[in-house]
């Protein structure tokens, strides 16, 4: 039964989520209790993630695949030790979701000079690729890949 589960990420106590809207946008938090079908009680904890304890709607949470083994209304220290044991932060930074966010953030912050450098880099790259392609197509090789 479990091999065929359609859903793999659940809203549950201990689920690590990323906040996707508001002043804490982009930060991780843990669900410590569930208010009702729309809202959860959530905390960073503040010492670790700068997310203070608050009620937040599920609309503003992106569930990650990480889940901590904590009890309802777990203490800050409890959550911090579980975070460190599970090396959640390291694993989170390897997630493609996180990497994409970082990439978008960098791109958004580039200034005109940065975009100019990017344009030059793209031109240089495409020049290399197209010259290579030309060389390969002129050679009479059939089995060569790429």
């Amino acid at each position: 039964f479990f091999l065929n589960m359609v859903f793999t990420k659940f809203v549950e106590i201990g689920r690590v989520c990323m906040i996707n809207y508001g002043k804490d946008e982009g930060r991780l938090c843990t669900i410590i209790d569930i208010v009702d079908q729309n809202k959860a009680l959530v905390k960073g904890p503040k010492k670790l993630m700068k997310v203070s304890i608050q009620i937040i709607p599920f609309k503003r949470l992106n569930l990650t695949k990480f889940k901590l083994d904590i009890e309802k209304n777990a203490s800050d220290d409890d959550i911090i030790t579980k975070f460190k044991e599970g090396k959640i932060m390291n694993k989170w930074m390897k997630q493609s979701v996180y990497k994409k966010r970082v990439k978008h953030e960098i791109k958004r912050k580039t200034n005109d000079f940065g975009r100019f450098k990017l344009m030059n880099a793209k031109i240089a790259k495409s020049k290399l690729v197209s010259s290579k392609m030309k060389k390969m197509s002129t050679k009479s090789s059939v089995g060569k890949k790429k």
Partner: protein
Amino acid sequence: KKREMRTYQVIGRGQAKTGNKTPQLYRMKLYAPNEVVAKSRFWYFLSQIRKVKKATGEVVSVNEIREKKPHTIKNFGIFLRYNSRSGTHNMYKEFRDTTVNGAIEQLYLDMAGRHRARARSVYVIKAAPLRAKECKRQTCKAFHDDNIKFPKPHTAARHTHKRYKSRFAYSRPATHTK
């Protein structure tokens, strides 16, 4: 426009007169957005039940009552009275929230949505935290599970900030998440 409700304790009495130097004190626990409204509602209710009004009385104290444990979720049972278009009725509703103020806010929104009752037509008689077994409504009891777990089956695509909100989308978003 969500108005933040606060809990106030208002104590008032009729003015001291030569005949009655220590008039009876009356205390009311009210839910109001600020002290001014709290005092106003205090006189509104008190003059309905006792022979005293704002002109002939004085407010002795107004204190805001803060939530003792604002970081734990509680179940609130609220008795209310409201005016519908055709009459006035009593009601009992339950809400889950961390504070009474939050539950009262939910109440006003709920009454507005379900019964088209404006805030002026809703009178909160009593709001008290309940233990899990005292809850009567299924909406609250459904969340009394220690191992509660459910997925988010439908996630609408959303902008991360108001400035990234766009009027048109160029591809149909996927609402499922792996």
